[in-house]
């Protein structure tokens, strides 16, 4: 049973970190390496807020909003002006941005490992068996709600529809009276805020280090590729496949090989399905 709980928790955090990344891949068409640093930003902002006395829940929300604003600023200052220069230039601009954010946070917060100062809690009981702690349960619920919310937002609201329209065909969307610029700002806000929230959760579950953003971006890339680049539902499925795959795989290999295990899963899936899991339900015709 423990495996299922652990799998569920890691899948939730992975889901929350990766959907934002996938959203940006879908709309902007490049791999935003700085997304890992959005997690770092969220985690450290949340830490700073709780340290000055804000309770955890509002601190998490506020950290997400601040990270979302940073994402918007990054888009406006860095990525929008170079959009015409192609995916490689954007990819490495995001690497540069990741270094800047990482460096500035490191200079302010220091390189030491830090953690949220939370009262210790015991796991709750479910049918007399130990289940999850309060925090873990909250993380799972928030992550699942965010995924559901994102789905409803993308399929049901006007803004969501315009995001999808811009992602599919920007010229056509513009001809239909959608302003791609405000759509993009919205995407960057939502994506970065979700990343920031994931960062707070990572901090709550474990500790915060400066390397966190780099470690997480590797897992995020793995999840996104597994799901199929740019496919939101693919990524949602992939975070569960990957998290449970890792937890079950750890029965057979030593824990030190955790991310190696994740990559082996991806390599195997891509050998069979070069377009990722999304190709299970999307025909191969759509390429970019």
């Amino acid at each position, binding site marked *: 049973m423990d495996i299922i709980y652990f799998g569920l928790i890691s899948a939730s955090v992975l889901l929350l970190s990766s959907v934002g990344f996938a959203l940006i891949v879908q709309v902007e068409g490049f*791999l935003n390496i700085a997304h890992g640093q959005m997690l770092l930003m969220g985690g450290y902002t949340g830490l700073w807020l709780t340290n000055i006395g804000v309770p955890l829940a509002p601190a998490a929300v506020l950290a997400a909003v601040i990270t979302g604003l940073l994402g918007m600023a990054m888009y406006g200052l*860095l990525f929008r*002006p*170079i959009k015409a*220069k192609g*995916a*490689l*230039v954007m990819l*490495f*601009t995001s*690497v*540069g*941005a*990741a*270094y*800047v*954010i*990482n*460096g*500035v*946070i*490191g*200079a302010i917060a*220091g*390189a030491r490992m830090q953690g949220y100062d939370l009262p210790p809690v015991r796991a709750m009981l479910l049918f007399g068996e130990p289940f999850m702690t309060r925090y873990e349960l909250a993380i799972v619920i928030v992550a699942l709600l965010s995924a559901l919310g994102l789905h409803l937002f993308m399929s049901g609201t006007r803004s969501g529809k315009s995001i999808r329209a811009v992602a599919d065909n920007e010229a056509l969307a513009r001809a239909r009276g959608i302003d791609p610029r405000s759509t993009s700002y919205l995407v960057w806000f939502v994506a970065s805020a979700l990343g920031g929230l994931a960062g707070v959760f990572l901090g709550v579950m474990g500790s915060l280090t*400066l390397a966190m953003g*780099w470690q997480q971006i*590797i897992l995020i*890339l*793995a999840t*996104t*590729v597994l799901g199929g*680049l740019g496919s939101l539902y693919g990524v949602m499925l992939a975070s569960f496949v990957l998290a449970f795959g890792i937890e079950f795989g750890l029965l057979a290999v*030593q824990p*030190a*090989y955790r*991310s*190696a295990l994740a*990559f*082996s899963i*991806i*390599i195997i899936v*891509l*050998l069979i399905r*070069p377009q*990722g899991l999304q190709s299970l339900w999307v025909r191969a015709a759509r*390429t970019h």
Partner: protein
Amino acid sequence: MDGLLIFATSMVTLAAIYGMVCMALNLEAGVGPLWDLGIVGCFGVGGYAYVLLTADPAADYQSYLFGFGLPMWVGAIGAATAAGLAAWLISLPTLRLRKEYFLIVTLAFAEVIRQFYANEEWLTNGVAGIYGLDQPLKQQFAPGDYPYVLMALCLAGLAATWALTRQLSKSPFGRSIKALRENEALAITAGIEPTATSRRLYVTAGAITGFAGMFFVWYNTLIVPGQFDSDFTFFIWAALIIGGIGSQRGALVGAFVFILLHDSLRFVQVSGEMAVALTSLRTALVGLVLILILRFRPDGLFPERPDRMTKGSRHA
């Protein structure tokens, strides 16, 4: 003053090593079509192969396999061969993937390889690494002069890499990989086999990178898994982009500019607390330069120049 000279020597040595890897990456990703985000994988394999072949047998507090104590030239061949072999193995499943997928899967392989060194203690002594490794020609020179000797060796390696990659990119092979980069469909109709050509390219670049790994071992006199994380890959890419991707001179200049940016601040002596902040700011500085170059000179300091076959044939 002496300290400054030694520091500069050390920086030039490191930049020469970075330059070798930059040129290998340039061959792959600048001249050729392969966006490889796992270059550190072959670099590490080369380094470890060299160490395992040439180091003395393990002492009883260490555990690593082999330690044959073989001569260095055997180690050099071994480093390039092992890295080429690793590249060949990686190329088997990855070359059929599209650009971004290839990027990420090569990154994944490099990470798996790093975890392998860190965990397989019987082979590599794990995270503790292997220390006190020999440097070439160490006995023949006074210890005070040795840094210059090492610098000369690395510069010689750099020159050899320059000549080799330049020759390769001008050869028919170089023209075929350039064709694959520009327009794969057209290259296929011209009779270029994309997978076989890309595989040859990937293995060649891997072998050169592994060879550079040997110089990195000489420079550090130790080997630990932490040296080979993906930071290195991103640093090499950053250097190449700063210099100008697709151009030999760009790869060379990029490596030196990058080391100047990234490591010159190391010379500043500050207190412990400040040093931590300074390390972080160093990273931020590299990022800022990368952003600015991409914004204002997206083709780098020395952009790729169009080929001229012979005089007068340009409009033919």
